[in-house]
């Protein structure tokens, strides 16, 4: 099946007083219809900037964006504002991290959904409102007829995120970008939101790009996983590839630092030593090398993102297959 969204060599830099921050540095990936792609990485790895750049939300006077983002063959990176507006919401919708602040506090939630519908469709206010009620019901909000007249502060965090999702779905987009949609929520509410996203993905054949730093969320939902580090993709594979056959030491490190039920309690959690590099002056060669326990001479040269094993599982690491095997052995921490 051909890709719905193709990102190629995307680079986003921001000029700051300290110099150019290369937030995203050569990111490529595909999203197919109905697929859930998780983009994983720690804070500052460029995952949110990548997601927001898809619909041009990072455009700013101090930003330079190069590379290509194609949606159904249409180039978005240099698309004009009017063209971009037609894509936003209508084709590619977004849900953000903090549902407390992502809705405008001074408008009723119904009106905020109506505003979105009427920005794209020539329908009456009453029709749009009817649609809003239907949408709220579809994301599991009780008594949607009366709740559309409520303000955001009258909803709980989880309910607000449902409102955000309902709004994002208003125009039946083909792609939903969810930027850490559960980070600000309680664990039980997180599970509800994830289940809702999984259902929408299944029922509507909605492609979802899920930005997260939570590998639990990834395991729950993703078909494919993109691991990002310091503005670059370091590994790209199926869910099973990433969880059972990690090929990059960073991915292995992330997995190793998860709490596990099958290990004795009281064990100290392994961690990846050091700090992520500054994006102002990233290290020469492999970005992860300074923190990597497996580094050797070749790491002074930056590896390409490549399908080294010929299985469609891409990585950016010079290690040979024998060393890669060892990445999967349990980490022993003294």
């Amino acid at each position, binding site marked *: 099946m051909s890709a719905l969204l193709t990102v190629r060599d995307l680079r986003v830099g921001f000029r700051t007083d300290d110099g150019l921050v290369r937030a995203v540095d050569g990111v490529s990936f595909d999203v197919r219809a109905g697929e859930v792609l998780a983009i994983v990485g720690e804070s500052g790895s460029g995952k949110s900037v990548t997601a*927001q750049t898809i*619909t041009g*939300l990072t455009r700013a006077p101090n930003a330079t964006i190069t590379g290509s983002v194609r949606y159904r063959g249409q180039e978005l990176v240099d698309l004009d*504002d009017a063209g971009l*507006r*037609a*894509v*936003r*919401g*209508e084709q590619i*919708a*977004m849900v*953000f*991290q*903090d549902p407390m*602040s*992502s*809705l*405008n*506090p*001074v408008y009723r939630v119904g009106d905020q959904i109506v*505003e*979105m519908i009427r*920005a*794209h469709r020539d329908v009456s206010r009453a029709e749009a409102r009817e649609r809003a009620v239907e949408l709220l019901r579809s994301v599991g909000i009780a008594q949607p007829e009366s709740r559309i007249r409520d*303000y955001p*502060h*009258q909803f709980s965090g989880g309910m607000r995120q449902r409102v*955000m999702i309902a*709004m994002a779905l208003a125009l039946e987009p083909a792609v939903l970008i969810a930027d850490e949609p559960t980070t600000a929520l309680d664990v039980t509410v997180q599970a509800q939101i994830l289940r809702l996203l999984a259902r929408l993905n299944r029922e509507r054949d909605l492609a979802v790009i899920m930005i997260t730093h939570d590998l639990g969320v990834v395991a729950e939902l993703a078909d494919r996983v993109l691991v990002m580090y310091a503005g670059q993709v370091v590994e790209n594979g199926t869910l099973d590839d990433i969880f059972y056959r990690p090929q990059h030491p960073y991915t292995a490190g992330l997995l190793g630092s998860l709490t596990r039920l099958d290990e004795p309690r009281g064990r100290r959690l392994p961690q990846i030593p050091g700090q992520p590099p500054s994006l102002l002056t990233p290290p020469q060669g492999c970005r992860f090398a300074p923190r990597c326990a497996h580094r050797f001479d070749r790491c002074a040269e930056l590896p390409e993102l490549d399908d080294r094993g010929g299985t469609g599982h891409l990585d950016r690491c010079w290690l040979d297959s024998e060393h890669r095997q060892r990445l999967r052995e349990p980490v022993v921490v003294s």
Partner: protein
Amino acid sequence: MTRFIVRRLIGMIAVLFAISVIVFLIFNVIPNSDPAARIAGKNADPALIARVSADLGLDQPLPVQYLTMMRQILTGQLMSYAKDRNVLEQIWDGLPATFSLCIGAGVLWMAVAVVFGYLSAVHAGRFTDRTLTILSLVGISMPVFWLAAVLLYLLTYKVQLFPTGSYVPLSRNPVEWAYHLVLPWITLAILYIGFYSRVLRSNMLDTMNEDFVRTARAKGLSERQVRIRHVLRNSMIPVVTLFGLDFGMVVGGAILTETVYNLDGVGLYAGEAIRSLDLPPLIGVTMFGAFFIVLLNTVVDIVYAVLDPRIRLGQAAAV
């Protein structure tokens, strides 16, 4: 809501009481403020002064004098010492000029400040913003009495574009009314235009970084819709608060503007009362001004709840 209004009314009475006591006391400790001595004229013999004192009730102890004065205010019987005229009637007669001045200036300063602030924020850091910033700072820096005198000199004397002031009632001739008020409106508005456009600019720049603005963009709204419906709308809340407070102040004391342009409103009356150290008009005008400030404060709180639904009056704050 009812509880809120009752609470505000009680507060208003307390404020007015405090203000009247303070003005009364200040007046009584100022040297040479004995009205009897001034009314009796120069070289008056002590017997005459004593008689005038008795006439005005000034020989009574202070608390009695105060209570008498309050009773006169509440019954509308308060007379000025100097000219023997009814204070409340004088204030009443000054209302049309004062309200014409203040409402006109208020509309002008809000309208212009919103446009300036909006343009400044949208073009932040660029030429438009810098120009408007300089204009605002100049506006804020000009003292009202100086600005009024300069405008009067340039536009009525040098270039005879406007009349020299004085008030024409709206009911008599609306065109003349406005024509005579143009300069006073501008004079009074300029300071607030400068100040408000700065405040709105910085509010808008803050609001532009809010998550809900990003949501609005992600919804596919045009930049104009995002700026007006989401950024400007949310940035107006503090500006409206300021407006309420400043408008109350202006109603209670546009003394300088009214004096320079010879508009016989409440401010001009207050100026005269201060010059002649006449206590009854002073107390009357001060309480009139305080009344408007407290009233507008209450209105601001109510409007605030309309503008920001997270605030609901008279009930515990939700979340």
